[in-house]
C-alpha cells in the first residue's frame, strides 16, 4: 500500500513536465493566428494532421507551437493526445489522475473502481447517503451570493440550434 503510493508519486514526477507541453494535432486546416481572435494577423497556414504543442489557453483558443512558429488556433480545431515519438499519449491528465505513468502502465490499482451496468443494476437504495447528499443543497440565494463572490455575472444567451 505504502509502496504503491510512492510509485504513484514517482509517476507524477516523471510525467509532470510532459503535461506542461501537451501535444495535439489539427483536425481542421486553419490559419495560425498571431492573437486569439478570428481576424487577427495570420502567422501561417496549418493543415489537417499538423502537430502542435499546446502551451496555453485563452477562452476558446489554444496557444501553440507549430514547428518554428507560435501563435493561436481555435481550441476545437485541435485534437489532444497526438504525441511526438518518444512521448506517450498516455501521459495525459487522465493517466495522471488514475495513477498511470507516461508508459501507460498501471502503477497502482488500489481504489480503482469501475461503475459497470451490473453494479448499477444490483445497487440497493441507500437512504442515509441520499439524505447526506440532500443536506448539501444550495439555495438560489446562496448560489447567487457564491456567484457574486466569484464575480460571475449572469447574461442572456440563446440555446444553440443543432447544426445541419
Amino acid at each position: 500500500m505504502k509502496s504503491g503510493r510512492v510509485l504513484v508519486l514517482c509517476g507524477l514526477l516523471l510525467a509532470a513536465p510532459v503535461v506542461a507541453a501537451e501535444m495535439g494535432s489539427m483536425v481542421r486546416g486553419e490559419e495560425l493566428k498571431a492573437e486569439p481572435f478570428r481576424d487577427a494577423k495570420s502567422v501561417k497556414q496549418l493543415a489537417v494532421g499538423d502537430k502542435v504543442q499546446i502551451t496555453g489557453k485563452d477562452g476558446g483558443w489554444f496557444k501553440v507551437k507549430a514547428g518554428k512558429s507560435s501563435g493561436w488556433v481555435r481550441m476545437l480545431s485541435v485534437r489532444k493526445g497526438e504525441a511526438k515519438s518518444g512521448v506517450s499519449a498516455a501521459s495525459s491528465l487522465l493517466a495522471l489522475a488514475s495513477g498511470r505513468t507516461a508508459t501507460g502502465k498501471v502503477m497502482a490499482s488500489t481504489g480503482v473502481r469501475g461503475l459497470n451496468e451490473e453494479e448499477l443494476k444490483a445497487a440497493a437504495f441507500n437512504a442515509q447517503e441520499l439524505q447526506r447528499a440532500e443536506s448539501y443543497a444550495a439555495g438560489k440565494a446562496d448560489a447567487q451570493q457564491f456567484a457574486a463572490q466569484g464575480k460571475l455575472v449572469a447574461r442572456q444567451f440563446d440555446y444553440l440550434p443543432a447544426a445541419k
Partner: protein
Amino acid sequence: MRILLKMMAVCVMGLAGSASALDLDGLRDKLKSQLPPEAAKVAQVAKEVQGPDEQEEIAIGRQIAGNLLGAAPLVKDAKLQKYVNQVGRWVASQSERPDLSWHFGVIQSEDVNAFAAPGGYIFVTLGLYRLLQSEADLAGVLGHEIGHVIRKHHLKILQQSKLVDAGSQALARQSGSSRVQQLIGNGAEIVARSLDKDAEFEADRMGVVLAARAGYDAFGLPAVLQQIGHAATDDNRVALLFKTHPLPADRLAKLEDAMGDRFDHVKGITLEKRLQRVK
C-alpha cells in the same frame, strides 16, 4: 325538450345498459359509477402523453439517486460537496427550471462519468472531477447534465419503455418507493442506459450555453471532452461512458459546428483558483 330527453335517455341506456330512463336518481347513481373509470382512463392517457408531474418526477429521481449512491457513495468531503452544489445551483438558475430543488454530488468512483436523474439529481464521479482544471470546466459538465434534466431525457426513455405504464398499474396495489422502484427497473440501471445520440449532442449544446449564461467561459465542457478524448478507448475507467455516449471526437465536432463563431466575443471567466481540489 321531450325529444332531447329521450335522446339522452337512449344514450345513457347505451352506456348504462339496463338503466330505466325514468328513474333519474338511479340514473345519476349509474352515471357516477360509470364515469370515474372513464375519467381515470382519460387521466391515464394524458399522463402517458405529458409524462409524470413534477412531484412524481422528483420521486422517481430520488429513488434513482438513492440507488446510485448505493453503488457509489458520496466522497466524504463536505466542503467539496457544498461547493459543487453552489456551482451547480448557479448554473441551474440560468435554466428554464430555476426553482427545482437541484442536488449535486461527487461520488466515490474512479470511473470517468456523470449522471443525471429526473427531478434535478446530478452526480459526477471523482474520476471525472479529477480531470477538471477550472470552475468553468465543472460548470460545463454540470450544464450538460442539467440539460438532460430540463429536456427530461431519462423520463422519456422510461415512458418509451412502457415502464411508466407498468408503474401506474402497480400503483393500484402498492404505495411509496416500491412503486417508484418498479417504475425505474433494477437499481440505478436507468442512468447507465444509452440515450439517443441527439439527446447527448443537445445536452452538450445546452451545457456550453448554460455555463456562458452563468458568466463562465463557455469552453469548459469542450475542454473536458478533449481531456476525456485523450484517454485510451480500452481504459476501463471510460468504458461505460464510451458505451453510452457518442465518442468525444464526435461530440467535439458537433459542438464546433453548433458553436461556430457565436462565442467569439463572449468572454467568460474560468475561476481556476476557486476550483476545489481533491486528494
